[in-house]
């Protein structure tokens, strides 16, 4: 196994006057991974996270970054903190400058960047989180989700290799949560290592590719989410609830209604599984619907509006903050803003056409996901790129009149 990027080796920590917050914790975070630290409040998640960028020093044990044990002199700490960015749970404690721009500039200025580089870093970071145009606004007039994104931009502006999020979606409403989680996905797909702490099993189940379950300062389990979360006993020990779909799946398995195997991770997979269980195979169907895919960086809004207005597509989804911004600007109403690919596959399976708007590296991701699904399920589905003016496709729903 290659050296993990971040690693703790049997670290312990105790706050004054309290029981041990960490009682010998060893974790390994691989470079480029999406890891979720899952556990109830008080399990020691935040304490562990604070150790990873040297804010807390373990009482015993060792933290290693890139294979080297952390040093706790000022110089090394500065260097470490630039590389391991930390986004607090509550953006209100993190965003403290009087304007968005000044706040995002805080880190780069402290890094000693020249003014031009600072300006560039701020512009890039704000663009990334989809908040360009917010530069002069006072942060305390922003919504919760916007504040969170400013906080993230403030860290991104320092260009860290690892991003650590403490309870990234706490107190956010579903739409803002989705936006933030999408941002995390984009960051991870851009090659950064992303680590979050959460008590939301549902979220970790959907998002993470590796899960570390914690309770009372110890690691109870680690592994892929569907494995860790299938163990009811473990989750009960960590005072957590299993994800609803997994819970249903396990109960169906216990009653012998469905074969137990790898649990489905999404509504799409689940639907397919039940369908297959009932008919013994995926039933033959009409021609599936088409999935149009558009790269918002390369297409104008007009082409897309044509698709929608002529009734070629019945459902439109956008992935990523920039894509949503684009749709907003072009006044294209979105039906799906989260779980977009799965939703569109589901629609294609019942013969309806849909359009996915996204940007950059996510385009590849859509092709890959649909390809994978197609291979697994044996149903021929693929994404049709939209480029330049589109001629109405040969989907079931054709241009009216």
């Amino acid at each position, binding site marked *: 196994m290659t050296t993990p990027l971040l690693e703790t080796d049997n670290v312990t920590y105790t706050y*004054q*006057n309290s029981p041990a917050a960490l009682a010998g914790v060893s974790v390994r975070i691989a470079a480029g991974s999406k890891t979720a630290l899952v556990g109830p409040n008080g399990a020691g998640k935040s304490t562990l996270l604070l150790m990873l960028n040297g804010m807390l020093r373990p009482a015993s044990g060792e933290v290693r970054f890139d294979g080297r044990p952390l040093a706790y002199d000022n110089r090394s700490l500065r260097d470490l903190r630039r590389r391991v960015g930390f986004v607090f749970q509550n953006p209100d404690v993190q965003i403290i400058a009087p304007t968005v721009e000044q706040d995002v500039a805080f880190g780069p200025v*402290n890094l000693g960047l020249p003014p031009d580089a600072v300006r560039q870093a701020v512009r890039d970071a704000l663009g990334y989180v989809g908040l360009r145009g917010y530069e002069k606004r006072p942060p305390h007039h922003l919504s919760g989700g916007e504040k969170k994104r400013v906080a993230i931009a403030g860290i991104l502006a320092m260009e860290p290799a690892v991003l650590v999020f403490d309870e990234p979606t706490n107190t956010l409403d579903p739409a803002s949560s989705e936006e933030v989680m999408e941002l995390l996905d984009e960051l991870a797909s851009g090659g950064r290592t992303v680590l979050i702490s959460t008590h939301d099993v549902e979220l970790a189940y959907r998002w993470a590719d590796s899960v570390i379950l914690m309770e009372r300062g110890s690691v109870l389990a680690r592994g892929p989410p569907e494995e860790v979360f299938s163990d009811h006993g473990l989750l009960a020990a960590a005072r957590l609830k299993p994800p609803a779909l997994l819970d249903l799946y396990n109960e169906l398995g216990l009653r012998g209604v469905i074969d137990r195997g790898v649990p489905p991770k999404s509504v799409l997979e689940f639907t397919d599984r039940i369908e297959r269980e009932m008919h013994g195979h995926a039933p033959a169907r009409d021609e599936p619907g088409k999935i149009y895919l558009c790269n918002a960086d390369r297409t104008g809004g007009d082409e897309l509006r044509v698709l929608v207005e002529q009734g070629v597509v019945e459902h439109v989804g956008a992935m990523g903050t920039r894509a949503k911004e684009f749709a907003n600007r072009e006044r294209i109403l979105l039906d799906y803003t989260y779980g977009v690919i799965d939703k569109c596959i589901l629609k294609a399976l019942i013969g309806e056409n849909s359009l996915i708007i996204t940007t950059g590296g996510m385009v590849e991701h859509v092709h890959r996901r649909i390809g994978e699904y197609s291979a697994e399920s044996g149903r021929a589905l693929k994404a049709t790129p939209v480029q330049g003016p589109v001629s109405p496709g040969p989907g079931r729903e054709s241009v009216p009149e």
Partner: protein
Amino acid sequence: MYEVLEDFAQQNGLRQTSPGLKLFLGVSSILLCVSSSDPAAPLLVAASMSAAVLALAKIPARFYARLLLVPVSFSVMSIAVILFITAGGAVLLEVPGLPLAVTSDGANLALLLLARVFGGMCSLYFIALTTPMTEVFDILRRLRVPAVFIDLAMLTYRFIFILIEEAGQIYRSQVMRLGYGRFRESVQSSGMLAGALFLRTWESGEALILAMDARCYDGKLGIPGDSRPVSFIAIITTLLYLSAVFGVSLSTGGLVLV
């Protein structure tokens, strides 16, 4: 970020002892210290109070040792001044080239002051580390301190902990973004921290008014706590101890009352 003594007061070995008695013991010790004209009694107080804090209240020795350093910078500077401006008696030390000299009178006074500060601070620590402020409020109420003062103090108490928590988090988030690297940045960051805290204070104030109104605020706050019975042995021990210190004080130089 801050180690507030109150946190220990809420859970220490002497938590269940009558707060009135602890307060009486602490304050009497302080008064005996400042009234003694010889270092012996204050030093005795310092030793016994430290012993009580460490052995009975079970405060970690390391933490207590660090506390003892708090008054050092103030005392060292002011006692140095007193050492040089107080003449009289034999000259013990002369600073070559400067009109500065340490005399025996000066040295004696400095020693006495050092002992008093030491004894006084140890007694103060005894109170601070064993008697939660939440119980001191009850005592103040029984002592007929005006209600408006106690109410204000109680509300302030509650908000100190809310704001300390926030200040700590803001500070941490600044450190993570390298906010306290150089002196200039530190001043800048401190200003930002204080400003953000001011804003938060303002919001807390407005929220507090709303919360109090929602709960039918009519100018009253809380209930008098039930008084805890004081053990007879504890009273006798306290009185015996205080008389002992009093005795030492009298026999070593008398008391200076006014």
